[in-house]
């Protein structure tokens, strides 16, 4: 359970039903249990089964929602904007080029402050053509004003979608939320998942009842009029403040969910064997599990290493990272994406910025890995941990290592 223990004694609710389902089905269940009333999605690998599962739930009468058939991702999110403005709870999902096509309504969704929940089934972006995992799609749109949470396994997909509505619709927040789960490495992986009972989810998550904005023919209002810069600046300022408040709300919702269902995830980030560690790894998404196994193995060899599983990329937990990493001797970041202008990964660049005021700057090393569905293996982590140990002992180590290709940066063919 992502490094947390499930203690039946601590639960408020009885255990749910155990099922073996893939990540897309876990997302469909998370949505279904949250009782959305309007859905719209356009199929794209590896999200396609999610659309099929949701359509089946609606067709079988198990989910009382309108499933709107659309001709593109742009339309899918535009439909949900109208539905959300009219007071509906909504859900969709997409991947890669679908997200790219969706970008225009995507940024308008957050700036309209609509609490839409959307899965991003992360997939490499093209070219070259690839349908496999990679987080470049979601990470590229990180600055469009949404909250983005990345998850480790199928159970966390289901649980996080339920939590996402509570975060998005919180009156202090009113922002859309992406639950980002790795294409193929979660979307198509069959795993054991506990499905909570509907009545327990209903107690945790109240129906959506918007108060600030609602399309209603009886009381007409204008939405999104031409806005001069001084007022637009005020909108942006308030949007940024909502992102700042979301840090507290993400933590509170996770704490409440953990108390009721027995599965806390750490809120903004999970610390794994970190507090007494001198070395730290930072991971995002499904590779976090493999990283934890590698951390355990290194601990057994006497290496004092721990891990931060970053859950929230937006809002970025700057202060929390600073606090958690204070005093570490070396820090390694695993990036399943590329930050083209920095020649590193994105998370590395952001962690560097967050830690700029740490005294005695520890070495920070980036590991770019797992692009386009490439496997991030246990051996990759052994190599990463060995490089971290070298850096901590004062040896000069390259700023970026690309795990899985055989040449050193600067020596490429």
């Amino acid at each position, binding site marked *: 359970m992502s490094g947390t223990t499930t203690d039946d004694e601590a639960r408020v609710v009885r255990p749910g039903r155990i099922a073996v389902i893939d990540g897309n089905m876990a997302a469909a269940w998370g949505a279904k249990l949250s009782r959305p009333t309007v859905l719209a999605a356009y199929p794209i690998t590896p999200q396609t089964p999610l659309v099929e599962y949701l359509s089946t739930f609606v067709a079988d009468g198990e989910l009382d929602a309108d499933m709107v058939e659309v001709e593109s991702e742009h339309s899918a999110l535009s439909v949900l904007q109208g539905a959300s403005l009219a007071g509906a709870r909504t859900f969709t999902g997409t991947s890669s080029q679908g997200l790219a096509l969706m970008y225009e309504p995507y940024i308008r969704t957050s700036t309209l402050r609509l609490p839409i929940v959307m899965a991003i089934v992360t997939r490499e972006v093209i070219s070259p053509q690839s349908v496999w995992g990679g987080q470049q799609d979601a990470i590229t749109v990180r600055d469009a004003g949404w909250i983005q949470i990345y998850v480790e396994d199928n159970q966390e997909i289901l649980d996080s979608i339920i939590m996402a509505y509570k975060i998005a619709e919180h009156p202090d927040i009113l922002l859309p939320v992406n639950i980002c789960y790795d294409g193929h490495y*979660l979307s198509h992986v069959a*795993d054991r998942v506990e499905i909570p009972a509907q009545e327990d989810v209903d107690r945790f998550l109240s129906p959506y009842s918007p108060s600030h904005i609602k399309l209603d023919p009886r009381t007409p209002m204008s939405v999104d009029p031409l806005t001069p810069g001084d007022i637009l600046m005020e909108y942006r300022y308030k949007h940024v403040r909502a992102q700042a408040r979301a840090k507290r709300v993400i933590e509170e919702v996770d704490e409440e969910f953990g108390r009721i269902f027995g599965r806390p995830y750490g809120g903004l980030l999970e610390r794994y064997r970190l507090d007494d560690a001198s070395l730290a790894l930072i991971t995002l998404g499904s590779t976090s599990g493999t990283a934890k196994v590698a951390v355990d193995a290194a601990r057994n060899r006497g290496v004092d290493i721990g891990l931060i599983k970053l859950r929230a990329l937006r809002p970025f937990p700057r202060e929390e990272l600073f606090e958690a990493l204070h005093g570490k001797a070396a820090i390694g970041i695993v990036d399943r994406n590329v930050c083209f202008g920095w020649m590193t990964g994105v998370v590395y660049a952001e962690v560097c910025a967050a830690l700029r005021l740490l005294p005695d700057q520890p070495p920070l090393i980036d590991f770019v890995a797992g692009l386009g569905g490439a496997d991030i293996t246990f051996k990759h982590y052994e190599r990463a941990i060995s490089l971290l140990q070298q850096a901590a002992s004062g040896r000069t180590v390259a700023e970026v290592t690309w795990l899985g290709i055989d040449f050193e940066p600067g020596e490429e063919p």
Partner: protein
Amino acid sequence: MLHMKEIRLHGRGGQGTVLASQILVSAAVREGKYGNAIPFFGFERRGAPLAAFVRFDEKRIREKTQIYTPDCVVVMDPTLVHASNVFDGLQEGGAVVLNDRKMPEEAKLPTTVGRLGVVDATGIALEVLGTPITNTPMLGAFVATTSWIGLEALLSALQEMMRGKQADANARAALLGYERTRVLDMQPGRAEAHLL
């Protein structure tokens, strides 16, 4: 106490290899275990070689990677033994489950194999299902060879994941696969130590 087992299934597109991997996980979970199945992410074409990666354990499984050093290799299609490196990384004393009409020559097996299970899964599939889809007889052969999950759990998982007549026929194919598998300990002593 079962220590984590890693199983690599090799098949060709259309033989039900990915479904077989999901049935195995479902069977393990029925027995109160944890399990997950990762399909190899290649091109989905009928006849193309593909693999699926299954893990069982008594506790939650964190790894989300492919399997490079399997405890067991299951080969759904007899031609794959010659076409790709299906035995790569097999653990010392590990298990191999093959679809073949006759026992293979020892020279063609990996030196690390501890226990061998062989069954004519294509013959059973043609006899029971009328089509050479070998996944369910091979699941029966897997249980006969390793005993890592019980036959009862396998059959009930299979019934849950298939429907109607198809489920019944496949349960029969799995049962025949179980009954007709010839199991041979290649390195007595070592195999028991590893396979338990």
